[in-house]
């Protein structure tokens, strides 16, 4: 019987068709038609993904090969899709959240002109196509194609308003930062090819493949991790993500919060067997993740742009996921990817609704008291905040708790609670900045202009319905992974993913687990109350001292500018002014000048004097004779 999974090629095909139709017909399609096509193709993909998900759940998973993509010598790279628990879960997240954001976009971007509206939707569809390719790819090369595709779409969408040169700089920054990571990823793929002779996940993660990779596992995993730091915005390559907020808000929600930035986590979770071989890399991943989580959270404390707060929060949450990957809790990382996709997409779309209501204003210092006018937005935003801070029973509680618990278990083996305590502290920071954002934006008195106040309105249904759906998901999404201590068999995610992700669980005692949950819960609630008293009557004021450092993001951008960008442009200027002008031009012009000079000298030989010709002829013959008789042996 033909494998029904072969139909899975339809999932990425629909967004591709949507991209082509909308992209090519952007001059002819009306806006509503564009919106229907753009969202409709994603809906089809989503329905197919649900079907595939249930196929996988019934145990029907595997690799589907379509054709030979690259064949060189003994290396054969098929165009294949890997349909298993991990990829089907990501398919659901991407197409599900993607569909909601497409619907939302149709309303949010409605004031754009017809052509630009279609351009936006075609990019968005291309993004979904690339992202699906990324998670469905059955080998590293297909994954890499998707990886580059999402990077390109991210660039195109950050620079969507291309008339603003600052946005273009942001797009360029994102592209270049990603490129640094991609180089490392590419080298890692080459090394895998050199060692194993194949890039298919099945071969690489087989027992033999891992045996061949074991001697160089550390370097390969580190290179893969550098690739992941670029895409998933970790230290030191995280600075592009906050700048990426230059794009339209739904784009930030879809690409820079829910899906693309989790590609690095997907890739590492996919390679979990390889990462388990190298303890050094795992520690580096954990500490980089932890450092990023803490750094980004501190920066988020003092940001005043509603989207910037969420952007740094995303960086921080991604840091959590890497922490989970580093301590070997791959399932917890994937779980957090899922819940994060729900509540971060919700928060971003909520902020989009706020920005929409404020006629483009993004500075929270000019907002306040919006809860009266934007009731739906306020309630959904509140649910998002509760979810991200990990209040039970919202989804973030379960996934964040799984990560904290994994960190605690990891610490317990080393007897110092450094990972746990810092990640708990970061969770409190998260609570603080999220509720600061909520209180400043939605409570207190309105601080904007009269005109803005007059315009305040709740967003249309096309925008609020996705918000409500996401809010429901953010509220209940965590129930797929209820810890075993509450309900026996409540954790459905771990068994589901067990075919892809090897679990090495070191259970702590029930009482410890309850104590940890209670501790973090109490601290979070205490932080919320503290934040409420601090910000219920918020008045903007100038930041001084340490607050100013945080407001300026630790001056990391300035530091990078000083130590990397400036010297590079100096070097480029030097090469342009000196090397290019004197050496390269010198060589090129020198060749011409030398030919000119020598031909002018040679011209003198052609005197027209028959006598001199004959003399030369005779002399040459004499020389030839001499050579013939005396020199040649």
């Amino acid at each position, binding site marked *: 019987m033909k494998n029904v999974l072969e139909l899975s090629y339809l999932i990425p095909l629909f967004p591709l068709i949507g991209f082509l139709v909308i992209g090519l017909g952007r001059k002819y399609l009306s806006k509503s038609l564009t919106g229907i096509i753009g969202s409709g193709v994603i809906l089809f993909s989503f329905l197919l993904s649900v079907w595939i998900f249930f196929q996988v759940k019934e145990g029907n998973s595997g690799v589907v090969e379509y054709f030979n993509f690259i064949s060189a010598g003994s290396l054969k790279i098929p165009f294949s899709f890997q349909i298993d628990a991990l990829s089907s879960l990501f398919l659901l997240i991407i197409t599900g959240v993607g569909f909601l954001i497409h619907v939302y976009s149709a309303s949010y971007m409605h004031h754009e002109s017809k052509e630009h509206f279609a351009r936006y939707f075609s990019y968005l569809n291309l993004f979904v196509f690339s992202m699906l390719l990324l998670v469905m790819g059955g080998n590293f090369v297909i994954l890499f194609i998707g990886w580059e595709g999402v990077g390109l779409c991210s660039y195109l969408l950050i620079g969507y308003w291309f008339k603003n040169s600052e946005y273009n700089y942001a797009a360029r920054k994102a592209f270049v930062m990603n490129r640094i990571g991609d180089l490392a990823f590419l080298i890692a793929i080459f090394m895998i090819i050199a060692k194993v002779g194949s890039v298919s996940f099945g071969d690489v993660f087989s027992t033999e493949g891992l045996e061949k990779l074991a001697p160089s596992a550390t370097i390969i995993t580190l290179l893969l991790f550098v690739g992941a730091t670029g895409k998933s915005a970790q230290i030191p390559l995280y600075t592009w993500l906050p700048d990426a907020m230059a794009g339209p808000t739904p784009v930030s929600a879809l690409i820079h919060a829910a899906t693309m930035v989790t590609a690095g986590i997907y890739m590492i979770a996919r390679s979990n067997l390889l990462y388990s071989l190298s303890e050094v890399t795992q520690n580096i991943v954990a500490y980089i993740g932890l450092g990023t989580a803490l750094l980004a959270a501190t920066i988020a404390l003092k940001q005043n742009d509603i989207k910037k707060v969420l952007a740094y929060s995303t960086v921080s949450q991604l840091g959590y996921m890497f922490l989970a990957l580093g301590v070997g809790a791959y399932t917890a990382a994937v779980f957090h990817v899922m819940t994060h996709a729900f509540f971060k997409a919700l928060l971003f779309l909520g902020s989009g609704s706020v920005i929409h209501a404020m006629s483009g204003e993004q500075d929270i210092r000019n907002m306040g008291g919006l809860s009266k006018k934007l009731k739906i937005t306020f309630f959904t935003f509140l649910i998002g905040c509760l979810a991200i801070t990990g209040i039970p029973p919202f989804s973030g509680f379960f996934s964040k708790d799984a990560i904290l618990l994994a960190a605690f278990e990891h610490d317990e083996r080393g007897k110092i609670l450094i990972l746990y305590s810092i990640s708990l502290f970061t969770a409190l920071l998260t609570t603080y900045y999220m509720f600061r954002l909520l209180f400043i934006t939605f409570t207190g008195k309105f601080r904007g202009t009269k005109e803005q106040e007059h315009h305040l309105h709740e967003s249309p249904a096309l925008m609020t319905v996705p918000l409500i759906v996401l809010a429901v998901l953010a509220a209940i999404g965590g129930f797929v992974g209820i810890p075993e201590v509450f309900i026996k068999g409540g954790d459905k995610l771990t068994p589901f993913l067990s075919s892809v992700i090897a679990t090495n669980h070191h259970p702590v005692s029930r009482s410890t687990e309850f104590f940890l949950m209670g501790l973090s819960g109490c601290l979070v609630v205490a932080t919320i109350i503290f934040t409420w008293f601090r910000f219920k009557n918020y008045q903007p004021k100038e930041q001084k001292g340490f607050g100013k450092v945080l407001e300026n993001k630790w001056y990391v951008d300035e530091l990078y500018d000083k130590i990397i960008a400036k010297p590079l442009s100096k070097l480029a200027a030097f090469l342009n002014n000196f090397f290019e002008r004197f050496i390269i031009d010198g060589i090129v012009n020198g060749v011409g000048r030398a030919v000119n000079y020598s031909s002018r000298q040679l011209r003198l030989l*052609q*005197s*027209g*004097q*028959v*006598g001199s010709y*004959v*003399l030369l002829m*005779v002399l040459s013959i004499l020389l030839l004779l001499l050579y013939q008789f005396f020199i040649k042996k």
Partner: protein
Amino acid sequence: MQIDYYIYLSVALFCIGIVGVLTRRNAIIIFMCIELMLNAVNLLLVAFSKMHHLKNAAVNASAGSDGQLFVFFIMVVAAAEVSVGLAIIVMMYRNIHSVDINFLNRLKH
């Protein structure tokens, strides 16, 4: 007779020809000197041909005859060359009223 004498004679003729070509300016004399060089070579060819014939006649009755054949070829070619060359010199004389080769430097243009 010894072959050496033939060689001395033809080398002498050839050198006279070269010196003549190099030193004289009159086109006709240069022409004659070229003929002299050609005939010096002819002489040599004939001499060597005879030598070979004497040495190898017992084995091969026609030994060395190819050298003499070459001489005829050279004579025919030389005759053709002379007719063309003289025609050129006549035309040159008609145009510039001189056969001095130093006047021929306009050829470079």
